[in-house]
């Protein structure tokens, strides 16, 4: 390709050209308007940064090629017929460009999010290094505050939420018998928004004043007053949120309209149910965090008074808007994991899921109830006090549909044929750790208890039990479970078991003691603490280091097995869902023929039961992938 062709074709060369153009436009726009308006000084670094944080990412996305087709179509020029040349991967290069294949996008998501997981994890190691003893060990308090803020933000917005989207992106079209997602180009854009958000959060460390240091919760008025790094968070959340919403839209349309013939809603695997309900949460709730951050941005950049108590602002309103998203967010971070656990347990116990319909309905119940509990994050916020009671009641009630799931998984084990493979170990570890997190959650529902333990390490313990012992354990389970499908190779089972046991033991040694120091009086988000907490903090820190090291075993297993592992069959787990009925890895367009679904997805032990029927290859008639037949 000539240099001119390289610079005009979508890709990294064009990105290198687009970025400086974007920066110049941002500077020009801001300085021009300020000059016209008579502002003094004309060049204002803060204003330029704010606008650049919008323009430059778009320059990147345009350069890499996310918008080419839509710009061409919107301009009225004749569209080029799709030749699928942008689809699929033949070499590693195909993973570094805009690709419309959901399998490629899924792997792009998973690898990118794990990079951010590693960076967030390194920050956690630094945090524990600082807290290993009272006094300063490593960093000054401002840097420390920045570290735990970026740690949490990366883990939530750049790891847990999108990695589930990535796993689902890969698996769900295969599971429902579809050749791809409903909107493959939108899917690609959803992916590319992620590195934008992550780089932005990390870049905040280089802003004057350091990284954003208000936690991932960014409460006003601290967040409207702190230096420039805060704007990086405010903007990054918008990009990550846009990614999340676009993906959820894609999942909803795909699941509703592209299921194979015969796959009624009650013949869908529970992973599909889980991502369907999660997507409902995402599209309804995420705009609220976008709104909260827009208001922070306007307060910072234009002197708006949304949250300014000296003006007409309402400080607590920020928390209401923020938590109206951020509570459903925790279910966004858990429901896909519930789906993964259902897949892993049925495959490794070789039994139907116990109570399939209640498992599906409990997901819906959690979605509905999840919107009614947000103020339990605000019990001591000074909000109007009578709201605490109904919020306590709804929060307690949400334990019921969650409990249904735990008991159903346990009942699925009973009289199964249980294979303790690595995914199953993580699923079992999840059940026990999530139960503990759920118990501390019930405690945190009770207002009198919360008055004491709010904003203490008891909360830090709870969130890590449900987000790590909960969500991340299910992520590991899912990665191991679908690793052979995605890579065509088997991971090393022994290393997988070692990873599990080390994680399980040292996870508990790290986060278990946090319950004690929290109840005993240690607040959270502190760079230093009273000397009475020194011993337990030292234990926590040392355990955390070993816990962090255990991840290296996983990393090695993944990389070495992907390169050199033994070849995997189409169906190493002898599972029944559709993704296991195609090769590992699957063909570029998934199915030579769309299958017909004739029964449920977990009919183990039922003589003659079949989930999907594949016609012989000679009949090359594409089957219309409509909404599927109603009734069983």
């Amino acid at each position, binding site marked *: 390709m000539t240099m001119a062709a390289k610079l005009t074709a979508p890709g990294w060369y064009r990105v290198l050209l687009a970025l400086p153009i974007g920066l110049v436009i941002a500077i020009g726009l801001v300085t021009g308007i300020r000059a016209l308006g008579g502002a003094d000084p004309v060049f204002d670094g803060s204003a330029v940064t704010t606008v650049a944080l919008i323009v430059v990412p778009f320059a990147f996305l345009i350069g890499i090629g996310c918008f080419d087709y839509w710009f061409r179509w919107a301009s009225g020029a004749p569209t080029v017929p799709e030749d699928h040349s942008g689809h699929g991967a033949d070499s590693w290069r195909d993973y570094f460009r805009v690709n419309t294949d959901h399998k490629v996008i899924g792997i792009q998501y998973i690898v990118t999010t794990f990079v951010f997981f590693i960076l967030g994890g390194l920050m956690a190691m630094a945090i524990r290094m600082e807290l290993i003893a009272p006094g300063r060990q490593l960093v*000054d*308090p401002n840097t420390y*505050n920045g570290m735990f803020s970026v740690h949490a933000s990366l883990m939530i917005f750049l790891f847990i939420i999108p990695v589930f989207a990535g796993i689902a992106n890969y698996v769900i079209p295969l599971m429902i018998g579809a050749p791809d997602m409903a909107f493959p180009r939108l899917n690609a854009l959803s992916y590319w928004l992620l590195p934008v958000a992550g780089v932005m959060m990390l870049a905040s460390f280089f802003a004057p004043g350091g990284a954003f240091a208000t*936690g991932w919760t960014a*409460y006003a*008025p*601290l967040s409207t007053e*702190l230096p420039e790094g805060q704007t990086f968070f405010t903007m990054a959340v918008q990009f990550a949120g846009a990614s999340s919403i676009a993906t959820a839209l894609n999942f909803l349309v795909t699941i509703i309209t592209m299921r194979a013939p015969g796959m009624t809603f009650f013949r869908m695997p529970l992973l599909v149910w889980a991502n369907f309900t999660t997507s409902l949460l995402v599209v309804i709730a995420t705009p609220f965090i976008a709104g909260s951050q827009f208001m922070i941005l306007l307060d910072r950049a234009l002197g708006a008074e949304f949250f300014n*108590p000296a003006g007409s*602002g309402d*400080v607590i309103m920020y928390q209401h808007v923020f938590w109206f998203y951020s509570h459903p967010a925790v279910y966004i971070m858990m429901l896909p994991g519930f789906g993964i656990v259902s897949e892993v347990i049925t495959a490794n*116990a*070789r039994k139907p899921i*116990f*109570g*399939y319909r*209640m498992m599906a309905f409990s997901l819906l119940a959690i979605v509905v109830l999840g919107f009614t509990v947000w103020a339990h994050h605000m019990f001591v916020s*000074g909000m109007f006090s009578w709201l605490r*009671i109904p919020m306590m*009641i709804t929060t*307690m009630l949400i*334990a*019921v549909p969650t*409990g*249904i799931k735990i*008991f159903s998984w*346990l*009942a699925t*084990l*009973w*009289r*199964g*044929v249980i294979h303790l493979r690595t995914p199953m170990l993580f699923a*079992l570890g999840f*059940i*026990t750790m999530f139960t*503990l997190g759920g*118990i501390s959650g*019930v*405690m945190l529902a*009770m*207002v*009198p*208890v919360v*008055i*004491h333990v709010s*904003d203490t390490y008891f909360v830090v313990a709870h969130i890590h039990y449900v987000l790590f012992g909960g969500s991340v354990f299910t992520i590991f389970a899912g990665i191991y479970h679908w690793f052979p499908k995605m890579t065509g190779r088997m991971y090393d089972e022994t290393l997988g078991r070692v990873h599990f046991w080390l994680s399980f033991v040292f996870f508990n040694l790290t986060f278990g003691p946090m319950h*004690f120091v929290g109840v*005993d*009086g240690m*607040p959270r988000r*502190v*760079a230093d*603490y009273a000397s009475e907490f020194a011993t337990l903090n030292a234990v926590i820190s040392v355990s955390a280091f070993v816990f962090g090291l255990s991840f290296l075993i996983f990393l090695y297993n993944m990389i070495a097995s992907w390169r050199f592992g033994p070849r995997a069959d189409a169906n190493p787990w*002898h599972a029944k869902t559709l993704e296991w009925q195609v090769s590992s890895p699957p063909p570029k367009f998934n199915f030579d023929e769309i299958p017909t679904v004739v029964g449920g997805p977990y009919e*183990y032990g*039922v*003589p003659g*039961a*079949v989930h999907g029927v594949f016609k012989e290859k000679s009949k090359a008639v594409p089957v219309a992938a409509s909404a599927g037949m109603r009734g069983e």
Partner: protein
Amino acid sequence: MADEHADTEGGAEPPPERREPPEPSGQHPIARMLLIDAIASAIGVGLVLLIDWFPPVASSAAGPIDTLYHVTLVVAVPIFVLVMTVAIYSVIRFRARPDDTREGAPVHGSARLEVVWVAVPFVIVSALAAYAWIVLDDIEARSPDALRVDVRGQQFAWTFQYPQRGGPPVQSEQLVLPVGRQADFSIQAADVIHSFWVPAFRIKQDAVPGIRTETRTTPTRTGTFGVVCAELCGVGHATMRQTVRVLPQREFGRWLASRRGGGGGGSPG
């Protein structure tokens, strides 16, 4: 257990041969499991109750809150132990050899069991919620002769004021309180959100710029206890730690009088 001939098929996936689904051997396996569960629960409950979770009980709120917490543990531990027991027991009882390609029992559900595990948790959480509501009303009840204390949070220290009838309020950088008399805290923030927390009292309330928030409790022990800021308020958040001194009522009266400065007059608050 049923006959165990290995699955010889490679390639395509024919339906597996019908073989006997796993049955737990031995008599009354569920009863045995529940017995193990009961013993483990008793041990677990004993252990968690032995742990000294809380700072000293120094207010009228601390006792009820601590009890509520312990009761919740007593309810929660058996539930956790039950989950662990069923999981571990099942995994041991029904574990298959790696080459075992049998399928499990085709059990799809049990309406009766589902009703039980919806109803029982519902009753438990409802009871706990009711109990918590009662405790909340109890610890927040107003006392008629409360001592009003204004609390002001700023980056990075608390200051306190004791409003006086017929005179300027008494200022203090340390919180001093009389034992046995309810203290009614009216809390403000000068700059950003802080949170006024006295662990030994088990009270906490955010200090929010632009509004007044409140909390109240009755100190029940003399002594010196920590006052901790519990809401991230900037670089000095970790250092925003002070103390509260609880004095016998007469001593408190003398302290207040000495702070009032020249001239007697004016009864406290």
